[in-house]
């Protein structure tokens, strides 16, 4: 039975991630007084890309990278307890596994960028790596704050324990830091330094076309939804009814709200330079470390 939940997770993510992307695009357009594409436009994009000609520089690493990226996020998704129900796989991983899997997705982007030989792509890769190094700890410490409370690194245990029994100061601080890091997690403005369309022309993805690009696009959308789901599961656990279907529906509504937030912040902020962004991340890391310390003392 629990094994079905794995497929439910994956299905929900693949089916809805493009929709949330569409919402952001629509919202961005509205903010900028444009009409914008229909919310289902990302689905059209993906389908169209899958059928288009694929141009490669002819090495296996370039072709492997998009497969690796999409697979890593799908694997990560199959471990997380969507709708507060652990899947069959949840017990086989711990939070460190999840963190490493998310990192693997970024590694795939780097691999693709480096093997495309394009100078702009490699600039993007260099920035992406700097971002991973400084933003990953924030993600890790989100789990660790919970893990310290639960004395367990189990995925469900550390995700659920952070806000169960009300918010302590540690949880509140961690939540604030997570919100501040959210744009960086999903690579949107003001932290879209990796892609930076008008500066380095989509950076790592510059050489990608057709189905390979479709895979990367789907990966980015699913990653965005993943972080939104992570946020609502970890920080908003009190709207839990106990009915699986209802819980998922409620969570999806919350994810929708988080997505709107991401879209609004993205649409109203200019991009930071990488050195400015890096300084910002250092502050976030320091703050989240404080949250972990507070959690240790039970504050």
């Amino acid at each position, binding site marked *: 039975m629990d094994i079905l939940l794995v497929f439910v997770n994956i299905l929900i993510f693949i089916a809805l991630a493009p929709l949330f992307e569409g919402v952001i695009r629509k919202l961005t357009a509205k903010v900028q007084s444009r009409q914008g594409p229909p919310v289902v436009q990302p689905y059209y994009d993906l389908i169209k890309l899958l059928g288009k000609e694929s141009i490669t520089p002819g090495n296996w690493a370039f072709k492997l990278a998009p497969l690796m990226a999409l697979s890593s996020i799908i694997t990560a998704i199959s471990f997380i307890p969507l709708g507060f129900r652990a899947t069959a796989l949840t017990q086989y991983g711990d939070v460190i596994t999840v963190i490493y899997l998310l990192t693997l997705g970024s590694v795939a982007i780097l691999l693709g960028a480096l093997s495309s030989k394009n100078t702009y792509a490699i600039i993007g890769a*260099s920035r992406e790596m700097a971002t991973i190094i400084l933003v990953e700890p924030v993600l890790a410490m989100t789990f660790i704050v919970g893990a310290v409370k639960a004395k367990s690194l189990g995925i469900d245990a550390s995700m659920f324990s952070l806000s169960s029994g009300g918010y302590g100061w540690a949880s509140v601080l961690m939540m604030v830091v997570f919100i501040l890091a959210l744009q960086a997690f999903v690579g949107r403005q003001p932290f879209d330094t990796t892609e930076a369309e008008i500066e380095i022309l989509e950076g790592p993805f510059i050489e990608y076309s057709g189905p390979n690009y*479709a895979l990367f696009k789907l990966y980015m959308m699913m990653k965005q939804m993943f972080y939104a789901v992570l946020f609502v599961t970890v920080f908003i656990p009190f709207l839990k009814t106990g009915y699986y279907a209802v819980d998922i529906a409620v969570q999806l509504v919350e994810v929708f709200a988080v997505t709107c937030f991401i879209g609004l912040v993205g649409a109203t902020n200019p991009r930071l330079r990488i050195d400015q962004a890096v300084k910002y991340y250092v502050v976030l890391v320091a703050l989240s470390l404080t949250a972990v310390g507070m959690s240790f003392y039970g504050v």
Partner: protein
Amino acid sequence: MNSDVYGILLTAMGILLASSVIVPFAAGKRKYAGWLNFLFVTVAGVMLLNISYITVFGSSQLSQLLHFGPVGIYFMVDSFSGFFIAIIAFMAMISAFYSISYMEHYPEYSLRGFYVSYPLFILGMIGMVTVDDLSLGFTISWQLMTIASYFLVKFEYRKPEIVRGANKYLVLMELAWVFIIIGTFMVQGAGIGDSLHTIVQKMGAMPGNYQYLIYGLILCGFGFKAGIFPLGQLWLPDAHSVAPSPISALLSGVMLKTGVYGILRTFFWMVPHSETFHYNGSFWGILIASIGVVTLFIGTVQSMKQNDSKRLLAYSSIGQVGYIIFGIGAALFMFNTQSEFLRLLGVITIIGAVYHVLNHAVFKGLLFLTSGSVLFATGTKDLNRLGGLLKLMPVSAVLAGIAALSISGVPPFSGFASKWTLISSSLLAGSEVLFLLIFGIIALFTSAITLSCYVKFFGMTFTASGHEWNAGHKVKEVSAGMLLPKIVLAALCILQGLLPFVYFQTIIGVFQYSKGSIVYSVFNSINMNDHLFSSMMGVSVSVPGISGIASSAAVPAVVLLVFLGALLFSYLLRRSGGSEEREADTWMCGYQDLHNGNRYLNRSMFASLKSIFRWTGGNVKE
């Protein structure tokens, strides 16, 4: 049975000694000498592996006095020595095989000295992990190891910077030796050739305060060898980066581990219990763990800044040894607490540290052999000049990729299993001890930096571009003689990652059979099956006081299966549109073509990170 093991040990040592006398006469015929050296090392290596097999799986030997003419030296080959003997013997064989083809790279240098020193170096390392004293036998082994490796490092003696690096190495290793010897003779009444057991008894009769001096000096000495911060930075990058690559593989993969061995032996075995002498395990645990954490962070960050591929690997060795030292210290601290929860995590941590010793030997060996192959094929190890070898050296590229993923700790490769063990146990312990929590977070953070080092190493060597303008001649894949050892090591990287339970069980055995350590009783009293669930699928841990599985973790098999399923799905999805594929040149955004002037150089990578980590030192001048 006893004499049996020691008999084999002496025979193996004799063969190595014979090799260093006989093979140099054949050095005129380079290939022939290489094969002969490999043959001798393999015969000795197989015997040594046999010793490991006997001791690791149950028959640990007690200390024994062996006579060499008038002098007697105490030897002890227990399961713990056996574990290290296996690593040394195996890597020695791999490296000897690789040397056969690789040493063709230096036609202008005679191989005579190389084949004198090589077996002596191995002999010295074997001696380091088998002698049971800290004076006579230790000195002979240490000097044999140091002086033989000094000549190996100095192989290209016509280059002044190489000689400088080698000289520094020699001087500092002698300094380390002095530290250890002084430390030993601080023990009142310690005589030349006393076995460790005797030393422990004599130490027990001393006031406890002396331990800070004795252990401190010994820690400095072995720490020098292992490469702890800041001592390792003084010699390690200079020596490891200039030696011929198979020797670098041995230096980084194996020789540093003799320092780790020394630290473990000192703080877990050489521990007296008496009325006057109270061993302050918590203090030493905190000190060693702190040193380890600083070492792993600084070493890895410095590694990220390097442009020379072998220097990058050398700094990264400091970082990886830092993980091991950190594990040792954290475990020592946890064993010296009263909490059952922490003591169990201590067991897990020490297993992880020893597991990482093995893993690091394999993947760092593979990485040095890779950079050796690249040096062989292109003539350069400068990452600014390399690039784009993916198509030209496809096998080396795949093997390097496996090694890079292993050392970065990506599941399901070997580094993940051991780093997970270290990080997760210290994070779990962190719920009771704050400093372990912080250290665990730093270790986790550092593994992302490790990843960046190897993205750079792999990316700037095999992908990107550069060799087209800089390599000079046509680049070819290296010969089978150099690929074969790398394939064996890469297979091990995967095996050690996929079957962590085999290694967990073996390492538990190592500690259960080796008598006299402070963890002997813990390992034999805790019923492992109650807390450690290991199967084909992986290893998970439960801890007292918490229901359920606390950290179900090294489960590479499950992750791999799911990942492969997802990979298949992604592949089918990509095919689903039925799109055509075409090869085309990279679009240069308006430039006419890609050349040395407009490509992205290694030194520009991670510029923003380098600037915030400038204070860690090890910066490279432009």
